C-alpha cells in the first residue's frame, strides 16, 4: 500500500504503525456497517476530481460514497437545514469560513482530530487555511481549497502608461485613474458590488481593515465608524473607474471582465490567478502580472473543507468511516494525484505547495506573490455565529451606496449597525 510505504519512511514510524493498527481494527469492525456515506459537496475541482478514486474508498469500507453537488447558496442552505433539523442525511458536511462559527457554536460538527485518523497528518494543512478552520484553538474542518488575495495587473497597459506595479494604496488609486483615462480599451478597475457577506462585503473588508476599522467595540457593532465611512467612500470612488454595471458585479463578473481584457487592475482571491493563464478561456494570457495587495490592504483569508456532522454520523462506525473519508479525500496523496491530472487550483497542504509537481504547473511570479501575501492573510470577517445575517445586511447597505440608491454613507452604515445590534443580542 502506498500510504504504508510512505509512513515507514518517516521518523514517527512506530507511532504511525500503532495508529495504523488501530485503524485496521476499526476497519474490521465497521467494514460494511454503513451502506452509503452521504457527502455534501460544491463543484470545486478538488471535489469533482474525487470521482475517479472513489471506488478505492468504497472497497476499503464496503460502502458507497455519494457526493451531492450543489451551488454555493444551495449548498449552504442544505447543510444548515440538514444539521439544524437533526435530519442527519449527510455524514460529511461542506463548511466554509463564513459559517464555521455558527456550526461550532451550535455544536453540529466534530473537532477534526476526534474523527480523522492521525496517519493523515493534520499538521500538514496550510497554516493560513487551518487558521480559518479553527475556532478557539480547535480545528474543525479539513481544508482543500482556500487562500488569500492577489492583485492582478495588465502589465502591457501599465507599461504603455509608463507606470510601475503599485505597491501602496495611494499608488493603486493613482494608477487606476491613469489607466482608466488612457485610451487602451480597458477600464481601470473592477470589484464586487453585489450584496452578500461573501460578495461585496468580502472585498470591502480589506479596505475597512486597512483604515483601521474594527467590527466590534465590546459587544456592540462598530463598523459604522469613521473607518467604515472612509473605506466605503474610497471603494465607491474606485468603482466609478469600473465597467458599466460594476455596482452589482459578483466575483464571476469581475473576473470574467478582467479575463476578457476589459479591466486593467483587479484585486481578487488568489485562486483566480491560474484562470488568467488558461488559453481556452482567457484573452489576456501572458499579459498579467501578480503582486500582493498594496499596503496597507490586508488579504482576506478563506477556506472550504469537509467536516463530520454530529447529526449525520452519530454512531461509531459512521463516525469512523466519515472521518476516514475526510482524511482520505484531503490527503497528501490525493493532492499529488490531482497535480498529476493537471489540476493546480485547489491546494490544501503545505507539502503540496513545496512539491516540484506543483511549482512546475503555475507561473513562478504567481507563487512568489502568493508567498509574499501569506503573512498579510487573515480571516478578516467578524468571527460570530451571527455573521451570515450581519454580513448580508451590510452587503445590502453597501450595494445601495454603490448603485446610487443611497448617498448618505454614514447614515446607511448606521442603519446596518443598528440591525446588527439586534442580531448580536439574539445570540445570548
Amino acid at each position, binding site marked *: 500500500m502506498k500510504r504504508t510505504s510512505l509512513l515507514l519512511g518517516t521518523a514517527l514510524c512506530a507511532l504511525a504503525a500503532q495508529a495504523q493498527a488501530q485503524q485496521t481494527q476499526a476497519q474490521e469492525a465497521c467494514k460494511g456497517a454503513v451502506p452509503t456515506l452521504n457527502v455534501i459537496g460544491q463543484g470545486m475541482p478538488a471535489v469533482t476530481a474525487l470521482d475517479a478514486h472513489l471506488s478505492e474508498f468504497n472497497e476499503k469500507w464496503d460502502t458507497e460514497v455519494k457526493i451531492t453537488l450543489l451551488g454555493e447558496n444551495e449548498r449552504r442552505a442544505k447543510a444548515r437545514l440538514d444539521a439544524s433539523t437533526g435530519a442527519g442525511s449527510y455524514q460529511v458536511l461542506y463548511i466554509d469560513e463564513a459559517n464555521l462559527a455558527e456550526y461550532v457554536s451550535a455544536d453540529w460538527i466534530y473537532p477534526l482530530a476526534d474523527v480523522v485518523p492521525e496517519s493523515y497528518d493534520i499538521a500538514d494543512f496550510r497554516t493560513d487555511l487551518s487558521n480559518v478552520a479553527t475556532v478557539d484553538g480547535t480545528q474543525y474542518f479539513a481544508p482543500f481549497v482556500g487562500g488569500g488575495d492577489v492583485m492582478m495587473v495588465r502589465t502591457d497597459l501599465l507599461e504603455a502608461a509608463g507606470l510601475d506595479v503599485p505597491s501602496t494604496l495611494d499608488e493603486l488609486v493613482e494608477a487606476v485613474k491613469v489607466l482608466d483615462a488612457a485610451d487602451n480599451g480597458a477600464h481601470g478597475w473592477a470589484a464586487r458590488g*453585489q450584496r452578500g457577506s461573501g460578495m461585496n462585503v468580502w472585498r470591502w473588508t480589506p479596505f475597512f481593515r486597512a483604515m483601521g476599522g474594527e467590527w466590534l467595540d465590546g459587544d456592540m457593532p462598530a463598523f459604522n465608524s469613521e473607518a467604515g465611512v472612509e473605506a466605503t467612500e474610497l471603494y465607491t470612488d474606485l468603482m466609478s473607474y469600473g465597467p458599466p454595471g460594476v455596482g452589482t458585479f459578483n466575483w464571476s463578473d469581475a473576473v470574467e471582465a478582467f479575463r476578457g481584457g476589459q479591466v486593467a487592475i483587479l484585486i481578487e482571491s488568489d485562486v483566480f490567478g491560474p484562470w488568467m493563464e488558461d488559453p481556452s478561456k482567457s484573452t489576456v494570457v501572458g499579459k498579467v502580472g501578480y503582486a500582493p495587495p498594496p499596503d496597507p490592504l490586508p488579504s482576506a483569508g478563506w477556506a472550504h473543507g469537509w467536516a463530520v456532522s454530529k447529526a449525520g454520523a452519530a454512531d461509531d462506525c459512521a463516525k469512523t468511516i466519515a472521518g476516514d473519508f475526510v482524511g482520505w479525500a484531503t490527503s497528501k496523496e490525493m493532492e499529488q494525484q490531482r497535480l498529476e491530472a493537471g489540476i493546480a487550483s485547489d491546494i490544501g497542504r503545505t507539502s503540496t505547495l513545496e512539491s516540484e509537481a506543483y511549482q512546475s504547473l503555475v507561473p513562478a511570479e504567481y507563487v512568489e506573490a502568493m508567498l509574499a501575501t501569506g503573512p498579510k492573510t487573515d480571516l478578516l470577517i467578524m468571527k460570530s455565529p451571527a455573521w451570515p445575517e450581519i454580513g448580508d445586511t451590510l452587503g445590502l447597505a453597501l450595494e445601495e451606496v454603490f448603485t446610487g440608491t443611497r448617498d448618505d454613507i454614514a447614515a446607511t452604515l448606521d442603519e446596518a449597525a443598528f440591525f446588527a445590534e439586534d442580531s448580536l443580542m439574539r445570540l445570548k
Partner: protein
Amino acid sequence: MKRKTFVTLSLVPAIGILASLALVSVAGAVWFALMNRTLRSSDYEFVGAYNFLRLLRDKRFFNALEISAIWEVVTVTGTLVLAVLLAVLIYETVKKPLWRNLICFAFLVPVLLPRVAAAFIWRFLYSPSLGLINYLCGLVGIGPVEFLADPSLALISVAIVDIWQWGLFFTVILLKLMETLPRDPIEAAMLDNARTWEIHAYVTLPMLKAPIISLALVKAVESLRSFDLIFVMTGGGPGTATETLDLYAYQMGINMGGRISYASAMSILLLIVTTVVFTIIWKAGKKWAA
C-alpha cells in the same frame, strides 16, 4: 350510481387530501410564528405576537410588500397582454395546423427551462459589457444599459424574463382555447363586416372571460413565488430594489439568519393579505364575467 354518491366520491378524496396537507402547513407555520425558533439553536420559547409586532416595525418587510405588489401587477398584466396579443395575431395569420403546432411547440420551450438556468442565461444576456442585448443596443447607439444594476430598471428587467416565460406559454393556452370556441358568433360578426380586432375585442375574448380570469389568478399565485428567478438574477438587489416577500422570507428563514419563526410569521401575514386581496378580485371578477 346516484348523484349524491358521485358527488361524494369525486370530491372527498381530492378535498380531503388538500385540506389535511393545508392544515399541516398552516398550523405548522402558525405554531412556528408564535415561537422564537432559529435554525442555530434547539432552544426556543413561546413569544406570542412578538414576531408579528416586530414585522410591523420592519421597514424591509414593508419594502418587500411593496415590491411584491408591483411585481404582481407587472408580471400578471404583462403576461396576459402579451398572451392575448400574440394569440390573436397567430390565430389570424397562421391558419395551417402544422405551422400553428410548431409555433405552439416553440413557445412552450421558455417555460420548460429550469428557472435557475433561464435566470443565468438572461443574466448573461443583460450583462452591460458581455451581453447580447447591450451589444444590440450599442449598434443603434444606446447604452450600455445597466439593466440589473440600475435600481429603477432592475425589477422591470427581471419581470421581462418572467413575462417571456409565462406570456408565451399563456399564448399557447389561449390559442387552444380560441380553437374550441363555437364558430357561429364569429361568423355572424364577420357578416356584419366587423373589423378583425373588433371581432376579437367584442366577440371572442368576452367568450373567454371566465378562463382568462382563472388564468390571471393562477398566474398571480405563481408570481408570488418568483424566488428562484430573482435570487439568481439580482439576489434581491440593487439594495432591496427587487426583494419580494418570498425572497425576504427565504433570506430570513433559511439563507442567512435561520430565523424560521420570523419567516413563518411573515408568511402568515402574506397569507392573510393575499387571501383578502384575492377574495376581493375574485368576487369582482366573477361578477364581471357573469
